[in-house]
C-alpha cells in the first residue's frame, strides 16, 4: 500500500501542472454539486417552514365570482359565503370526510383600550378550530371555546405583540386575563394571550365569530369556511371530494354546479403533495446538474490518465518484462485516478461547504416582504453529512470509472511491443 502510494506520488510529482489542471475540473464539479444542493436545500427548507404554519389536512373555502350564467343569473355574480354554507359543510353530505368545521370573518380596524393604553388592530371572528388550523400557541389563558360561540360572549384572545403594548410596566401577560378591553362602546374580556412570531405575518386578535357578526351587524356574513378532513389519500380522491363540495355550495347559491370560480377551495393537503413532488424533482434536477458538471471532470481525469499510459508504455513494458502482472499495472493507474479524483473532489467539497456557510450567513438571514408577509427565501442552505458520504462514494466510483479504460489499456500492453518503442 505504502509502495503503491509512493508510485502514485512519484507519477503526480512528475506531472504537477497537468494533474492540477484536471484536478481543478473535478474540484469545480464537486463544488457546483455542493453549492447547488445547498441552495436547493435552502429553498426547500424555506418552503417547508412556510407550510408548517398550518395544519396540513385542511381546506379553506372563499367566496368568488361566477363564470357561467345559471338559473337566470348572469355570469360575474359575486358569491358571499353565509351561515347556510357552514351548515352544508357540517351536514351528513360530507360527514364521511369532514371533521371539525369552522369559519372566519375579518373586521376592523378597531382601537383597543386597556390600562389607559391603546392599540389599533383587526379582529378575526373565528371558531374554536382556528387554534388547530393555524397552530396557534397560547402563552396563558385559553382560546375561544364552544360556550363563547353559543352564548355569543365578548371573549378576546390577544396577540402577544399587542398585549405587550397594553401591559403596565412590570406586569406579565397573565395579569391581562379577565381584564376588560373596550372598543366601539363595548366591553370585551381578555381570555387568553397567544404567541406571535416577530418575523410572522400581520398581527390580529381572535374573537368568537357569532359575536363579531352581531357587533358588525352582518349576521349572515362569513369570510372563509375552513375544515379539517380525513380519508382523502390521493389527489384523485381530493379532486372528487372538491367537485362534490363545490357542486353543493354552488347549488345553494344558484350557480352552475361545475362553476370553478364561484368559490375558491384552498386544499393544503394537495398543495403539500404538489410541493413535495416539486421539491423532489428540484432535488433530482440539482443532482443531475451537479453530476453532469462532475462528468466533465471525470472525462478530464480519464484523458490525463490516457496520456499518462501512452507516455509510460515503455516503462509498463519493462515492469511486465520483470514480472509485473496485468493487475499490478492496472492498480497503478486506477489508484492514481482515484487519488486525483478523491483529493480534488474533497477540496471542491470543502470549498462548496464554505460557500454554503457564506450563503447561510448572507441570503439565509434575509427575508422579503410578500403581500404583507415576510418570507425567507433561504433557510439553512447547507448540505448534511449524508451528502458528504454520498459525494465520497460518487468520487471513488468516478475515479474508478475515469481510470478504468486507461488502466485496461495499460494492462493490455504487450511487453515486446512496449520495449520496441523508442
Amino acid at each position: 500500500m505504502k509502495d503503491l502510494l509512493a508510485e502514485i506520488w512519484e507519477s503526480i510529482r512528475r506531472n504537477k501542472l497537468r494533474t492540477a489542471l484536471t484536478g481543478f475540473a473535478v474540484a469545480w464539479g464537486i463544488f457546483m454539486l455542493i453549492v447547488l444542493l445547498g441552495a436547493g436545500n435552502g429553498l426547500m427548507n424555506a418552503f417547508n417552514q412556510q407550510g408548517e404554519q398550518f395544519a396540513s389536512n385542511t381546506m379553506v373555502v372563499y367566496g368568488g365570482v361566477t363564470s357561467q350564467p345559471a338559473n337566470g343569473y348572469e355570469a360575474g355574480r359575486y358569491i358571499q359565503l353565509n351561515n347556510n354554507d357552514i351548515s352544508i359543510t357540517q351536514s351528513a353530505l360530507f360527514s364521511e370526510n369532514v371533521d371539525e368545521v369552522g369559519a372566519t370573518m375579518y373586521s376592523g380596524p378597531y382601537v383597543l383600550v386597556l390600562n389607559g393604553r391603546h392599540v389599533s388592530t383587526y379582529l378575526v371572528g373565528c371558531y374554536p378550530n382556528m387554534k388547530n388550523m393555524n397552530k396557534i400557541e397560547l402563552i396563558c389563558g385559553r382560546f375561544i371555546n364552544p360556550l363563547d360561540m353559543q352564548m355569543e360572549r365578548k371573549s378576546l384572545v390577544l396577540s402577544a405583540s399587542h398585549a405587550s403594548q397594553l401591559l403596565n410596566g412590570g406586569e406579565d401577560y397573565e395579569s391581562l386575563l379577565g381584564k376588560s378591553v373596550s372598543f366601539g362602546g363595548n366591553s370585551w374580556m381578555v381570555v387568553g394571550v397567544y404567541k406571535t412570531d416577530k418575523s410572522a405575518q400581520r398581527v390580529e386578535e381572535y374573537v368568537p365569530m357569532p359575536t363579531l357578526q352581531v357587533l358588525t351587524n352582518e349576521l349572515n356574513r362569513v369570510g372563509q369556511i375552513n375544515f379539517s378532513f380525513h380519508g382523502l389519500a390521493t389527489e384523485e380522491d381530493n379532486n372528487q371530494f372538491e367537485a362534490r363540495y363545490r357542486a353543493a355550495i354552488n347549488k345553494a347559491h344558484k350557480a352552475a354546479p361545475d362553476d370553478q370560480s364561484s368559490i375558491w377551495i384552498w386544499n393544503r393537503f394537495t398543495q403539500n403533495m404538489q410541493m413535495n413532488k416539486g421539491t423532489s424533482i428540484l432535488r433530482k434536477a440539482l443532482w443531475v446538474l451537479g453530476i453532469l458538471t462532475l462528468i466533465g471532470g471525470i472525462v478530464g481525469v480519464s484523458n490525463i490518465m490516457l496520456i499518462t499510459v501512452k507516455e509510460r508504455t515503455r516503462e509498463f513494458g519493462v515492469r511486465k518484462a520483470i514480472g509485473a502482472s496485468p493487475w499490478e499495472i492496472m492498480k497503478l493507474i486506477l489508484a492514481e485516478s482515484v487519488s486525483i479524483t478523491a483529493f480534488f473532489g474533497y477540496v471542491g467539497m470543502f470549498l462548496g461547504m464554505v460557500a454554503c456557510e457564506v450563503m447561510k450567513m448572507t441570503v439565509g438571514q434575509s427575508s422579503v416582504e410578500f403581500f404583507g408577509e415576510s418570507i425567507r427565501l433561504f433557510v439553512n442552505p447547507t448540505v448534511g453529512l449524508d451528502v458528504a458520504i454520498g459525494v465520497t462514494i460518487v468520487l471513488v466510483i468516478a475515479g474508478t470509472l475515469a481510470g478504468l479504460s486507461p488502466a485496461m489499456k495499460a494492462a493490455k500492453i504487450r511487453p515486446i511491443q512496449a520495449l520496441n518503442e523508442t
Partner: protein
Amino acid sequence: MLIELHNIHKTYDNGQPLHVLKGIDLGIEQGEFVSIMGASGSGKSTLLNILGILDNYDEGEYWLDGKLIKNLSEKEAAHYRNQMIGFVFQSFNLINFKTAVENVELPLYYQGFGRKKRNELAMRYLEHFGLAEWATHYPNELSGGQKQRVAIARALITNPRILLADEPTGALDSKTSVEVMNLLTDLNRTEKVTIIVVTHESGVANCTDKIIHIKDGIIGETTMNEQHKASVFGTSTIMK
C-alpha cells in the same frame, strides 16, 4: 534439460507475413554459457524473446524446466518471467525516475517482498557489482557500463534460472564491453547461472562456452568453445 525447443515456428504478420523462425530445435543444460550469433534480421532477438516469454510462438513446443510454455495467460507469463528469467537489454531499459537501487528492487516488489528486505538485497547486489556509491543515483547520472551493470543486478536479484541478454554490449565501448562480459563469465562460473547472450560481435561470443549460429530461421552449426579461441581478434579483447 533446462530449456528444450522443438520445431519452433514464428511468423510476423504486419500485412505481409514474414516467416522468421522456421523450425528451431535447441536444448540448453543447466549452467551453460551460450551465445547466439547470426546476421541482422536472422531472428536472434525473436528467438530470445520467445525464450524470455516476452513473445509467443506459432508452432512447436517450448519446455522450460519441465513446464510447457504455451498459450500462457498474461498473469502466468508474468509469474514465470518473475520467478525464472532475468532479462538484460541492449538499451538497458532502466526506469529513469527510479534510482539505481529502486530499479534493482523492483522485481522483488512484484514477488511481494517488504520494503526493507528489498532494499537490503538490492544493496548487496549493487555492492557486489561495485555500484554501492551509485545506489541513489538516477539512470541518467550513470555511464553506459554502470547502467548495464545495474540492469544485470536487476535481472539477477530474483535468483532466476536463466539470464537472457540481447546484445548486452551493443551500446558500450570495447573496454566496458570486456568488463560486462567478465562479469557475466564470473556469474556463470561462480553462481552457476545459465546465460544466453545474443550478439553479432565475435569477441563477445568468444567469451561463451558454446556458440549457436542461426541462419535463415533455423539453427546452423553449433561451435563448442571451451577454449575461447573462436575470436579472430584474440582471446581477451572485443573489437568494435
